[in-house]
């Protein structure tokens, strides 16, 4: 098992994944570095990758014409960036930007999608992992929407 495969296996996101799949995923991975403020991907762009943060922090942002750039969430080491590669039309829904010097592992989604289509066990496993991630983020987003820290006297 290569060092990269071992590193991937140690990530919570890939914990318990079959070694043969770890190898396949490692073959689709390449390192990427971003300087502070540098764009990683932009809303509307082709979602042909997903990322795992190795070092640094990434902000997911959305632009609003009346409020400017709004940060929705920040992601840190060992966390996954991007799920739009999973479903057509494979378009990024948000911007992603490095908040500081950031090292990422970029995974080639085209390669992975083809592998998932060929091996449904891999596809099902990956889908479960991403579904869990998306449910966790959906719950966090709902919690965020509750605006629990607002002053009750302000009427929100």
């Amino acid at each position: 098992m290569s060092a990269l495969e071992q590193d991937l296996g140690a990530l919570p996101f890939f914990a318990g994944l079959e070694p043969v799949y770890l190898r396949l995923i490692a073959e689709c991975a390449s390192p990427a570095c971003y300087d502070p403020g540098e764009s990683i991907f932009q809303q509307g762009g082709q979602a042909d990758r997903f990322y795992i943060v190795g070092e640094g922090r990434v902000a997911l942002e959305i632009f609003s014409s009346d409020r400017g750039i709004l940060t929705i969430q920040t992601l840190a080491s060992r966390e996954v960036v991007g799920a739009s590669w999973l479903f057509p039309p494979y378009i990024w829904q948000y911007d992603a930007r490095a908040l500081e010097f950031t090292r990422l592992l970029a995974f080639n989604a085209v390669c992975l999608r083809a592998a998932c289509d060929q091996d449904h066990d891999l596809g099902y496993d990956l889908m479960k992992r991403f579904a869990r991630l998306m449910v966790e983020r959906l719950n966090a987003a709902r919690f965020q929407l509750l605006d629990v820290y607002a002053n009750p006297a302000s009427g929100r």
Partner: protein
Amino acid sequence: MPTRLREGDGAPVPGFGISSIPSRQPGEHNGLLFSAFLCASASLRESKKGKISARTGIFVLFGFGVPGHNDRASGGAEVHVGILNAMIPIHYVVQRVCRETRDTFTIELAPSTEESIAAFEPGQFNMLYSFGIGEVPVSISGDPAESGCLVHTIRAVGPVTQALCDVTRGDTLGVRGPFGTAWPVSGAVGGDALIVAGGLGLAPLRPALYGLMRNRSAYGRIALIYGARSPEDLLYRREIEKWRSHLDLQIEVTVDGGRGEWRGHVGVVTTLIGRLVFDPARTTALVCGPEVMMRFTVLELLKQGLSEDRVFLSLERNMKCGMGLCGHCQLGPFLVCRDGPILTYSALRRWMDRREA
């Protein structure tokens, strides 16, 4: 347990008024006797300044029992005097007012005479009385080791807290307390300590952090996760920066919404828990914030492997007497002002999700 939120939307906030006594008496507490007791306390507040001893006079005058207290005491008279003492506010003078956010202020109080309340433990609260307006429970947010001065962080959410936020140096307030249970600062010795604060919930947790830092070598990792609505809503910003400079403390601050110059985390507190390194089997978690936030936080802590009896929450209920007499703050078997505000999740699990209406 930060500033209590239920001030009645403009209704008088009873501290001494009999209107606060519920018609349905919870548990074993006798509201009728208690309301008479409150009347007596109120009527004698003024005479306290006079020559008679109001505090013993009340006992002679009424001589009734307070269920649940008299039974446990060896001497009824002493118990009555003790309770009455706890019902009469001690005058404190505002020494300093610091604006934390647009609606939240920290006030420092010193006793106006030699009389002062007893030493407090982290997590306890006082009843603060704005004379002529009302009385509310407010957590003590200062350092327990600094005697003499009381620090309270108050958010203006109603008429009483607005009055407390409007005070200026030299004003006088009434203080009763300290009341309630404390954070298990010594109970966490030997393990990791994780503090999760949401919004104003940092105020009652700050004394616990002081306690942990003072005895730093007795603990493993110490981490604070603090969530606020926006960067502008963060409490104690300068102090947080100071804490961050401690290499043996992990301080993570996140906001629900950030724009412009904010370079920190954005997202809810629960998203940061999984990023920390701690030993779940040896970790004590202290959690305070809005109840919804605490529910999400507990779920995440349990997911990370903490046991229910090592997760401590500070509850917020409608407290009036502060001593478990009036029953306003009853939650199942607990009178939150006396048995809480700090309780374990294992004790609260059955009761936290109960709807009140």
